[in-house]
Structure formats: C-alpha cells, structure tokens
C-alpha cells in the first residue's frame, strides 16, 4: 500500500549530509534522554567493570584500573529508536577489544548489565574489531549521570538503547538472551539502517 500523502506537509528536511541519517530518523542538536527508571549515582570508589559468563576466568577493573587502560577518542553518529539522530558526537572510551584481550571464550553473545538493573544483548562480533567502546567522556567532559555516567557502552552502529548507560560489565553467553527493551517490544538486534525498531521489523 503506498503511503498516505499529507497535503500541505513539507517537513523540515535538515540538510544532513547524504547517507548519514537512517530511515525514519531526524537530526537533532540536543541530546535527548531515554531511561526506564531513576538515574543511578554510583560513587567511583564503588564502581567496577567485570567480564563474566563464558570465560576462562572473570575479569574485574576498578575505576582507577579502568581509566589506566588505553583509551581513544571516537567521533560517531548515534541513532535513538525514538527517532532522533545526533551527528559527529565525540567520546572518549576504552575499546571492548582492549577489555577482551587475552580472554578465552566460546560465547557468541553478550549481555551488558548496568546499575539500576538494565540489560541489553549484543552479539559478541558487534562489540569487537573497533566497533564498540566503554565510554567515560562525552564532548570533552566526564560523562554525566543522566547520559549514562560514569561509563556507558558506545555501540554506534546499533540503535542507541544497545549502548547501555551506567554499564558495569559484560556477561558473555553461549545463547542469545534478550535484554530489557528487547523483551519489551523492541527489536532483538536493532540495526538503524534496516529500521529494526520493534519486534518483527
């Protein structure tokens, strides 16, 4: 069925560079927030990051240890399932590859888990080879709690709910285990370029 034309509707048509904005998205200069509950505030001295699950031995970093890992600056476009995209966002973070160095695993999937109980599942191969980071800085400043600070996942090639805020670790799993939004109607994988917003997309 062809779409219904809304007479007189013109739209704003941001002059975004071609090929930068996935279908159904609009460009915003704000940084909107989507969270299911209150913003957690975990003091850095109680913060740690762990890799657990299907691994030879779990790994754990304190905040100090995590911040001592090699980090890099990332410039990425981010796409939220609620329709906004934000171009050229600048982050600092530690590559997931760096965290996985030397870890033996047969896992094919991961579950990122966060303060506040949030979880989201991502195939392991979507977090490796420079595709994902644990970010601790945004726009040159420490990452604010409302945006997921002290640290959040940054997986810019998937819808942004896959970039778990307030992340505390990754659990490596043999089977794919749908996370919070994935069990609440949202797509299991979440590729913005294929507009995988909801179940069945």
């Amino acid at each position: 069925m062809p779409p219904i034309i809304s007479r007189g509707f013109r739209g704003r048509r941001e002059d975004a560079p071609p090929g930068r904005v996935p279908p159904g998205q609009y460009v915003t200069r704000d940084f909107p927030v989507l969270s299911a509950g209150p913003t957690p505030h975990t003091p850095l001295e109680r913060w740690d990051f762990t890799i657990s699950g299907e691994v030879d031995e779990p790994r754990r970093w304190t905040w100090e240890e995590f911040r001592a890992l090699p980090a890099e600056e990332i410039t990425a476009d981010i796409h939220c399932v609620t329709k906004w995209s934000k171009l050229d966002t600048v982050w600092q973070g530690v590559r997931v590859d760096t965290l996985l160095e030397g870890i033996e695993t047969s896992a094919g999937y991961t579950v990122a888990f966060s303060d506040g109980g949030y979880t989201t599942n991502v195939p392991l191969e979507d977090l490796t080879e420079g595709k994902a980071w644990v970010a601790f800085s945004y726009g040159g400043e420490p990452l604010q709690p409302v945006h997921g600070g002290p640290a959040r996942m940054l997986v810019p090639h998937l819808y942004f709910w896959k970039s778990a805020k307030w992340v505390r670790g990754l659990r490596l799993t043999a089977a794919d285990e749908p996370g919070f939004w994935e069990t609440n109607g949202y797509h299991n994988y979440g590729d913005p370029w294929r507009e995988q917003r909801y179940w069945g997309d």
Partner: protein
Amino acid sequence: MEGTTVLGRLTWQPADVTGVVAETPRAKTIAFGVPGWAGHRAGQHLDVRLTADDGYQAERSYSIASAPDGTRVELTVVRIADGEVSPYLTDDLQPGDQIELRGPVGGYFVWEPPLGGPLLLVAGGSGVAPLMAMIRLRAAAGSDVDTRLLLSSRGWDDIIYRDELERLNGNGLTVVHTLTMSQPPGWAGYARRVDAAMLAEVGPGPAERPRVYICGPTPFVEAAAQALVGLGHQPEAIKTERFGPTGS
C-alpha cells in the same frame, strides 16, 4: 515477565481523524479511528508517520492518551513552535483526514487494573498523556485503587484534561496540581516546581510501596525520580518516560 506486547510486525496502518479538540492554547487531542487496531495497554505509545507529496517522510512517537477502546485511539499533541511534525498535527489535521500510525509500542511503562496499587502518577505538562490512559482505564474498569496524580503545569489554562480530571477526582483518585509559572487569583494550591516535600505530602509514602509512574520533560523526570528515591522509594518501583532535550 511484564512485556508481552505484540508479536509479529507492527505495520503502518491508515488512521482516520475523527475529532480534534483543543485542550489548552498549545495542546490538542486528536482522535483517530484505526480499522484493525489490535488494542493497546494504558501507558504505551505509537509512531506517527507523515508523508509529503514528493515522498519525504517524518516519524515521531506519541503516548496514547485514551484507555483501550476498540479501534479508537487518542493522542494529545503539544505544538512545538519549531517542531517538524507537531505543528502539522495541531494546525492542519481535520476530521476526515487520514495519516499513518503503527503500534502500540512498549511493554514497560504500562498499568492495568490487575497490577493494583497504590499508584503515584507524576506528570509534567503533556507527560500526563500516558498517565491519563491509566486513569481513564482505572475509571472504565470501576477500579477504586488508591491513585494520586501530581500534575505540574505552567498555569491554570495550561492544565491538560483539567475538566475531566476534576470530574474523575474522588473514588480513590486524588488529583493535585502545581502551577509553576502563574496562578489564578486566590490559588491555594502548590505554586512551585515538584520537589521532595511536595511528593511527600501528596503520597503515598514509601511504606505503602506505591507503583510510581513519572512522565515529562527530562529535567522534570530527573528531579522527581531523584526526590522519590531520596524519600525512600525503591528505584525498581519507579518507572519513567521522558521527552525533549536534557537542558544540558
């Protein structure tokens, strides 16, 4: 597990505009008839898609304001002056027009009578829309579960659903307004932003373990949720829905 919503693909469906009602100077409620609408749960949202005559499309999400009611769906839309979609919805849509919707979406920010209460609903401006769906469902189901609505609006004329809330007040529902920018002469109610003291007075307190739903602009939701956690409410009992920029 909460969150079994709709299996299978959410397809775009034609929706007939059946009514447009001004709620406030900036907000309108648009009623749609959606043939084949699969139904929704109170608190869910849907996506709206507008298509220009050259094929350009824009999509936005809106909370559903109406209680589940067959193929009828109502959205309350605040006109954002420099918005792309809301001015068209509020200024141009007329009964008889058709647009496209898909939904319902979201299995988390929902309430249904079997979940019980008590309920604490906290809304900033048009954030009242999904909470109104819960209040309307509660009334339609004949539920008398203890429900407090704290609604923050700029002024008396900016209160969305003001008359209907006044009618529904009672039978276990307590509606409390705070007017943050201007108050009518003789106003005896709250006249400030939502804070911990106000939330403590509105209740129910943490000992009664209310289910809390907060919806509004991001800074509003942040402040209310933080205040409730500070009062001793369990973070897991607080469900939030936010819109707009962070203001930071």
